């Protein structure tokens, strides 16, 4: 039990002026589950990419099973017995499970022999680790949880003894995540070593044996999980005490500000993404939409905010109809008091190559205060931006810095500042804290609740169930494009999880 599977000594890596990993030391014991946590940009992914051969460390050593190894590329990592399950699966969608598993390990130009061998080997793995999956199923037809299982099988097929999982539960329902944890326990009991990268403290507490915390490129602590607490880990990650759950008083709902009736949205291929969704959003309340990513939440937001055309449905903003099935000008909706914090701030909410102050007027660039005739009033734009940088504590406080150079949390604050500052009647927020560090999450949650207390109507979409439960006054659960249930925020996680998986919802609809 006490032998070391992987040891990193003095790993150092810089990207230009960014010092991503500073003299990192890490020991992972054989046959354990070792968690690596840290905020976004703390250097977790860089460290694991070095271990898996995507990057080369500037200096430092990697030891596997006590022997020093040089890992120049992923092939060398596989040869050293290291396998990786990526956050975004590396699967060929229109291949079968078997084809994906043997991809890159075909062994000869003619596939027949390899296929037979792979099929046998796959059966053995399935038996040994209880990882059943139909080898002839097409990947894109499998649910996400099974796709992830294929990724794990891929690593095992390549005889990995050490598995790195990068944010594995981001795309899973709570039930699927539980199942994954059981699989990991099983793997551990078979002697495999698992490194789990995550930012979810609860998962760390639930499954790991040891946990290492990274902050700003440094490894700040390693703890036995049994001897630490969520509070301590959060503090280690951020470097100061944080409030994990913001205080919030009772809601005081007023008039209906946004009314959605029978909204149906199809994607480019004609697949129904939002299916006959109806709800009301009142002033002074936060309505949270829970659901596993990809169940229509994104399309719902886009349709309401005028980015995507709906097939049918009736939406009213402040009692006035919105022509969601025809051409909607997002500018017009802004003028009518709707603000939108989009889910994807990198491609939609911000232009990363712009200076901060240029992003601070995105969508509001028609505002007369920013214009002198056809010219931009650069002074006014910068002055406003600087004022908001101070108000929202955006760091570094430089309105002329390229937006790409701000951290995720500060980028999100730029968007929030822009959308909240004009006091909209209705605020639509998608994934407010995705890729945002713990310290900024607290700030963002407080601001959202402040908006509600000022009598604004807030529609919140998030794949983080904790966030939905912490902020919402009412929770709608979406599954396969439909709202399958409405719950109070004190509904148990299990209850919401079943709805998110579509189990309860089907029953409810049938009754």
């Amino acid at each position, binding site marked *: 039990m006490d032998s070391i599977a992987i040891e990193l000594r003095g790993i150092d890596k810089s990207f230009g*002026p960014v010092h991503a990993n500073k003299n990192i030391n890490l020991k992972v014991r054989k046959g354990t589950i070792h968690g690596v946590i840290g905020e976004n940009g703390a250097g977790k992914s860089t460290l694991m990419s070095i271990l898996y051969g995507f990057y080369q460390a500037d200096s430092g050593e990697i030891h596997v099973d006590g022997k020093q190894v040089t890992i120049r590329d992923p092939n060398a990592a596989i040869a050293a017995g290291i396998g990786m399950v990526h956050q975004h699966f590396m699967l060929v969608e229109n291949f079968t499970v078997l084809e994906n598993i043997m991809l890159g390990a075909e062994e000869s130009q003619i596939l027949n022999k390899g296929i037979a061998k792979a099929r046998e080997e796959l059966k053995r793995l399935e038996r040994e680790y209880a990882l059943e999956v139909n080898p002839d199923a097409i990947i894109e037809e499998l649910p996400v949880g099974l796709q992830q299982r294929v990724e794990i099988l891929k690593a095992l097929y390549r005889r990995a003894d050490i598995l790195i999982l990068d944010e594995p539960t981001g795309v899973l329902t709570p039930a699927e995540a539980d199942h994954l944890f059981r699989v990991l326990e099983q793997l551990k009991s078979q002697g495999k070593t698992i490194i789990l990268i995550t930012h979810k403290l609860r998962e760390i507490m639930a499954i790991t044996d040891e946990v290492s915390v990274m902050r700003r490129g440094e490894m700040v602590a390693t703890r036995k999980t049994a001897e630490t607490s969520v509070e301590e880990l959060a503090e280690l990650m951020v470097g100061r005490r944080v409030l994990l759950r913001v205080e919030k008083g009772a809601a005081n709902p007023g008039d209906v500000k946004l009314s959605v009736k029978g909204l149906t949205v199809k994607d480019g291929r004609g697949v129904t993404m939002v299916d006959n969704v109806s709800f009301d959003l009142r002033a002074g309340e936060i309505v949270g939409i829970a659901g596993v990513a990809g169940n229509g939440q994104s399309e719902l937001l886009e349709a309401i905010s*005028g*980015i995507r055309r709906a097939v049918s449905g009736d939406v009213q903003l402040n009692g006035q109809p919105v022509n969601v099935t025809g051409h909607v000008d997002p500018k017009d909706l802004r003028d009518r008091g709707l603000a939108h914090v989009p889910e994807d701030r990198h491609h939609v909410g911000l232009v990363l190559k712009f200076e901060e102050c240029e992003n601070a007027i*995105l969508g509001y660039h028609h505002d007369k205060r920013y214009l002198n005739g*056809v010219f931009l009033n650069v002074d006014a734009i910068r002055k406003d931006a600087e004022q908001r940088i101070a108000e929202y504590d955006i760091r570094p406080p430089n309105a002329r810095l390229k937006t790409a150079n701000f951290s995720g949390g500060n980028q999100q604050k730029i968007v929030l500042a822009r959308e909240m500052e004009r006091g909209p009647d209705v605020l639509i927020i998608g994934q407010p804290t995705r890729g945002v560090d713990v310290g900024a999450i607290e700030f963002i949650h407080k601001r959202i609740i402040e908006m509600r207390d000022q009598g604004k109507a807030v529609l919140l979409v998030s794949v983080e169930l904790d966030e939905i439960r912490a902020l919402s006054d009412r929770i709608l659960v979406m599954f396969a494009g439909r709202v399958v249930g409405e719950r109070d925020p004190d509904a148990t996680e299990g209850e919401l999880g079943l709805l998110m998986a579509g189990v309860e919802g089907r029953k409810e609809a049938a009754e």
Partner: protein
Amino acid sequence: MSNPYAKLPGWVEYGLIPLVNLAVAFLVAGLVVLLVGENPFEAAYHLINGAFGRGEYIGFTLYYATTFIFTGLAVAVAFHAGLFNIGGEGQAYVGGIGVALACLWLDQTMPWFVVFPLAIIGSALFGAAWAFLPGWLQAKRGSHIVITTIMFNFIASSLMVYLLTRVLKPLGSMSPQTRTFAEGGQLPKLDWLLSIFGLEIGTAPFNVSFLLALVAAFGVWLLIWRTKLGYEMRTMGHSPSAARYAGMSESRITVVTMMISGALAGMMALNPIMGEQGRMQLDFVQGAGFVGIAVALMGRSHPAGIIPAAVLFGVLYQGGAEISFEMPSISRDMIVIIQGLVILFAGALENMFRPAITRLFSTSSRRAAVVAQTKGA
């Protein structure tokens, strides 16, 4: 962290890297000259001397540069909105109609400073109109602008052959060109500008449209970085999804940007038609529309970069002509090879030396910052 190209100091980004690329292009060009059995140093001498050796040569260099500033700006404006306008050639060609019409109408009765503004408007209008169609087709029908602008170059070429052989050609003339304009249709030379530096302009056609090109460069800077329209163009160029989110109309921006781009390309026609020939000839554009692509790439789509890049290509054109004159075994085609190499290294292979240079700078800056660090990269 996801960006492999770390931020470099401005002088490296905009000074050193283009210079290194340029040096390598000339090095390879030198090897080609060597292969032909000629002395590359002699060729280099003729290139430099041919471009700068005399006031007259400088006048020619700047005359070519004027043309390339217009076409380079045209390509750059479209780049900012994420559009690749390959149709500068055709837009400039058609822009010539506007110039010719203004001159043919008023050259005998009005002085140049009356004809010139009308010719500017005419060239811009005709160039814009020629770019409007591909822009509109992309905005409304989804036809890709790269394809349509290439096709419109050919259409322009055929149209101009027709006009210059059937419509605009004076009766009885054998050559496909308009009549020679009277004084009102010819632009004054900038001999006074060169004489400030003690240079003789000689026969060089360096004319006032150079000043217009500089004004246009400033205008483009204003448009892109100081107007609402420029802001919308850049938003769309960087992120069409962000533009949609912000309520910007993609089709309106596409059409308007293409028209501005076409207008700039069209204004190029002023330089050869009113500034040099005093008439509109067949094929007066001579590939300047395509050189504009290289100029915009080299100049990083910024007016402050486009002007020096245009001068560089002016040097290549003027000095190159001198090489082929002095060294007969080096033909005009060699010059095209050299130009091609510059485009290759400054444009397509722009990032070839960047990783090495980045490493150089990151290690040196880290060594300076972290003294305790024992080992560098």
